[in-house]
């Protein structure tokens, strides 16, 4: 362990920092700053400053409990160095055996959500019913109402998805434009094939 953080006794933020620690250890989901401020009955700007103290105390290498900003809020988790010990004790049903079909379905819902099973089947070329059911059961996606026109149930990713994948929000996903090949390039290849055939 590194030498512990020296907090000046009587630092006016100390008590707020301890309150935040308490809130974070009982919370069952990441807490946004506004929610922490409301519970601590304090100013959001002061809460942000106190979170800095807490983050310094609970960081990888210094502590087995680590503060992280994830899924739109702040949460405690286990340090990475303790992952093997944690794995011996706890199962992680959310991420067990995610098949390629499930991963593709998850990607489609994350990028295009809310979207329905027919939408997903359209892109994947394979019906997605069982993949969708599996992801719902794992809590990675959830129903988000029905499509007004066709009446199909639509799905979106859950905060658990962001937490499992370590994302602060969906905006942290890489931009679609930066992924894969664009339509122009594929079009070029199709044309090349067609020319060969007619030649």
């Amino acid at each position, binding site marked *: 362990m590194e030498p512990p953080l020296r907090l000046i006794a009587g630092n006016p933020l100390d008590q707020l920092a301890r309150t935040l620690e308490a809130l974070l250890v*009982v*919370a*069952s989901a990441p807490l946004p700053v506004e929610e922490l401020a409301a519970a601590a009955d304090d100013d959001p700007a002061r809460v942000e400053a106190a979170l800095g103290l807490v983050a310094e105390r609970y960081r990888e290498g210094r502590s087995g409990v680590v503060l992280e900003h994830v899924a739109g809020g702040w*949460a*405690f*988790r*286990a340090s*990475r160095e*303790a*992952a093997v010990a*944690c*794995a011996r004790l*706890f199962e*992680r049903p*959310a*991420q067990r055996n*995610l*098949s*390629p079909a499930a*991963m*593709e379905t*998850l*990607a*489609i819902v*994350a*990028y295009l959500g809310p979207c329905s099973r027919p939408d997903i*089947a*359209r*892109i*994947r*070329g*394979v*019906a997605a*019913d*069982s993949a969708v059911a599996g992801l719902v059961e794992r809590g990675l996606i959830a129903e988000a109402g*029905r499509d*007004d*026109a*066709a*009446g*199909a149930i639509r799905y979106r990713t859950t905060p658990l998805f962001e*937490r*499992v*994948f*370590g*994302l602060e929000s969906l905006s942290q*996903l*890489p931009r*679609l434009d930066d*992924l*894969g090949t*664009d*339509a*122009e*390039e*594929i*079009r070029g290849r*199709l*044309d090349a094939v*067609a020319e060969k055939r007619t030649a």
Partner: protein
Amino acid sequence: MIVRELDLDLDAFEGPFDLLLTLVLKDELDLRELDVAGIVLAFLERLAEREELDLEACGEFLVLIAALLELKARGLFPDEAAELADLEPEAAAEELARRLAEYRRMKDAAAWLRERLASEGDRFFRLGPAPLAAKVETPLAPQDPEQLARVIRLLAVEPPQVSLEHMALRFPPVLQFLERFRAVLRRRSRFDFDGEVGRLPRIEQAVAFLALLELRRSGEIRIDQAAPFAPIRVARAREENSNRDERTVAWNLRSA
């Protein structure tokens, strides 16, 4: 190499290709759940293990996989098949390229997620309430009953019209063609495949072709074709074989 004995290990199906076809034809396996690319890969792998190119196997495979693909495409996109067909070739190519690009991007997004999960998988956190936290009940806010009516009305929204083309996909059981061809061969010693089924919809022709392959496999018939695209001539095999093999075929179909 016998195409129909090709061993498959797919998400939706595990077993020989033959059984898969039978299940599809008997409507016991949803074609929409089937990864056709997986079948192609399995075939190519098997092909690569051999030194020589087995032309007969390739031909048979192409016919079968094309039939499967067409069935599946129509099942998945009952409306869009017609939509694409209505487009000018130029616009259709553009649309196809757009869809392929979208598909590729999603494949890459899935790969990114997989890598992310691998690198973030050592972050453990608690799911659910803390061990010694007081159990809290979050009371429901007062609700507007109109929401209930709205939800039921959405449930009563008619799904998009399924095209009639889709109805034509209720394709006949392969057994029907087995019997039809046997009946023809009882009257005549040979017949022309196109002459017999040429006027049927393409889907039924595909099923008829499967029946033809089945009959040849069991030794009931001989098939001749002078050249590619030339008429397929079907002839009775020797009598003594047919009785025994008829039983085998019936058993195969029932047991599948």
